[in-house]
């Protein structure tokens, strides 16, 4: 199953099990979304449960909050993560704080899906990775799957979660795993173990990381596309890296991270978002605090440069296996 199919499957399962699950967003209804993640849902569940919206992201999230307060479980799509900013106030000031400020009188169990990340020559407004803008906000959960299996299990968990969840879908992974070697042909998910997705209902619980590649020399913390890049970098450099796929950024599975770094004594953090104040900074801060006395080298960060995401220079911008490999070697040398 591709990641698109897995995401669609997750919504189908959730909508079938719970009549309160509704899906909407720009081009999401009749057409089924510009990435086709919602294809067929309107036909299956009717236009009152899956529909097209006006182009107003604040309206999409704002109405979703009202619906969630009513008792529904909206799962809405923002067409690209780059377009979430008009909805930022509703997310930060409203969804995130509704339970707290009303002491549970009202809650906002909603899921906000959005394609994230670059690698499709989308330029600065179809490539962004804004996860750190959500992890800073108390009351939100933030999830980034790296494969179809997790995408389905995490999305069902997100929809069933009683708190608002930001669900970032690395669009470069939609059709196949991507390890940053953009000049090589894409392997489809059907040839990847994690493209095998159980039928029906299952969840991958929020807040649990997983070791994707065991190793003893250095811990790599990654999520989304960068999980594959990190594995490729480990293979290419021969560094015995342990690659952890965080899956959920908040709540974070610090235990798994800590256990690994305590063993390896070295750590690097990779993400596609711009470096400064990225989620990597938080990871570094946590790891140096939790593992200070086991660390043998500074924790390295590999991330997008602190510039807008450029169009032509996409592959100079993207933190690919070469840069991650260098950071691995540096961590080993440090």
């Amino acid at each position, binding site marked *: 199953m591709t990641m698109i199919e897995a995401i669609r499957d997750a919504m189908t399962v959730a909508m079938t099990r719970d009549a309160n699950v509704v899906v909407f967003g720009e081009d999401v209804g009749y057409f089924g979304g510009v990435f086709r993640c919602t294809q067929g849902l309107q036909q299956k569940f009717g236009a009152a449960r899956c529909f097209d919206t006006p182009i*107003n992201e*604040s309206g999409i999230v704002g109405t*979703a909050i009202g619906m969630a307060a009513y008792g529904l479980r909206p799962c809405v799509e923002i067409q690209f993560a780059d377009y979430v900013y008009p909805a930022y106030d509703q997310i930060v000031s409203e969804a995130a704080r509704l339970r*707290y400020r009303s002491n549970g009188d009202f809650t906002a169990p909603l899921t906000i899906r959005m394609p994230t990340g670059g690698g499709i020559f989308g330029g600065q407004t179809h490539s962004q990775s804004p996860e750190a803008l959500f992890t800073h906000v108390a009351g939100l959960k933030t999830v980034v799957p790296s494969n179809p299996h997790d995408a389905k299990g995490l999305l069902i968990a997100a929809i069933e979660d009683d708190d608002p969840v930001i669900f970032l879908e690395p669009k470069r992974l939609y059709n196949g795993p991507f390890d940053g070697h953009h000049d090589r042909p894409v392997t489809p998910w059907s040839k990847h173990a994690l493209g095998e997705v159980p039928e029906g209902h299952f969840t991958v619980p929020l807040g649990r990381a997983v070791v994707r590649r065991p190793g003893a020399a250095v811990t790599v913390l990654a999520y989304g596309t960068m999980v594959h890049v990190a594995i490729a970098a480990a293979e290419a450099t021969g560094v015995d890296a342990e690659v952890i796929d965080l899956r959920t950024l*908040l709540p*974070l599975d610090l235990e798994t991270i800590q256990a690994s770094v305590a063993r390896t004594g070295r750590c690097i953090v990779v993400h596609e978002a711009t470096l400064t104040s990225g989620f990597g900074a938080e990871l570094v801060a946590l790891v140096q605090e939790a593992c200070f006395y086991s660390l043998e080298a500074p924790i390295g960060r590999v991330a997008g440069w602190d510039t807008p995401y450029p169009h032509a220079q996409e592959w100079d911008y993207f933190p690919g296996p070469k840069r991650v490999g260098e950071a691995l070697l540096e961590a080993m040398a440090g």
Partner: protein
Amino acid sequence: MSEPKPLSLHVPQPAVRPGDKPDFSGVHIPRAGTVPRPPVDVAPEEIRDLAYTIIRVLNRDGEAVGPWAGTLSDADALQGLRDMMKVRVFDARMLMAQRQGKTSFYMQCLGEEAIACAFQKALSPGDMNFPTYRQQGLLVAGGYPLVEMMNQIFSNDADPLHGRQLPVMYSARSHGFFSISGNLGTQYVQAVGWAMASAIKGDTKIAAGWIGDGSTAESDFHAALVFASTYKAPVVLNIVNNQWAISTFQGIARGGAGTFAARGHGFGIPALRVDGNDYLAVHAVARWAAERARRNLGPTLVEYVTYRVAAHSTSDDPSAYRPKAESDAWPLGDPVERLKNYLIGRGVWSEDRHAQYNAEVEAEVLAAQREAERHGTLHSGGKPSVRDMFEGVYREMPPHLVRQRRQAGV
């Protein structure tokens, strides 16, 4: 074309400023009873005029006249008067409590009591208001306990919101009152979403959104109208035009538009303008709009014309930006006085009973305050726990918050 002249920026200014004589000659007020009452399924384009006039029921002689009259029995109108009086007494006491340092902040609705009090009576159980900070009348008229409101205002150990919220930012699902946000306008589109949910589920509940004149400029006002218009959401969209947004007169938000109600026209949403100081008119229009929503005819935009008599909040001093006596000159009068005169005219009320009820309500409010104060006020007595600060961010406390709570030693 000849050589163009230099452009210049037009910055709207109010008619008067401190030191000037109040001037409301620009406010055109039609005679009570003169505006027609269309059927609720009227086509929006047929009633565009209703956005440029003012629907009024109570005339100068205290009589209820015209096609919008007659929606309330004497008993209901009497209840309305009592509700407004209670709100006013409550406000006065809480203002004093703030001055005494018992809370950090308070916001009155002086002069605007009719709007929320009368509107609430047009709703049914299960309906939901998405209010601003100036609709305490919804709670009072809806029978929410005064002492609970005070507990919230005092952030004491019985505060239903556990001290987390700024005073007056109530939440009361049981009484159809959505959690108030400090961020202007956000609730308006949430109201539309709530109403859409009712329609999606095939239920019969409706929603009401509330917004101030100044806040109609916020973008979520637009989002609300767009979504309400597209999905014909069963929602009443209320604009309380009390002439001021803190220090900014309504002309800055209204711009070149004749009225705020007119904003509905671009969306095909029927828009009505009503005398916000006329309890009977507010109720009649609210009922009309609620019926439209309930009958799946879609949203209605209602502008209530009123005047913010008090300061914006306890942090504000209006004498810096408007004439002190402006509120006395406000041509729509005082809502309590007007309904009182009507009821006296009807022979069901008197000055004496009015004074007597006022004393009763003062006592009731004072008793509630005593009870609330037993649970503490902001700086003395009972307090919400520090532990409460960490609770309720999520349904279950995630590990990082557990760590932080431990670090805080609670």
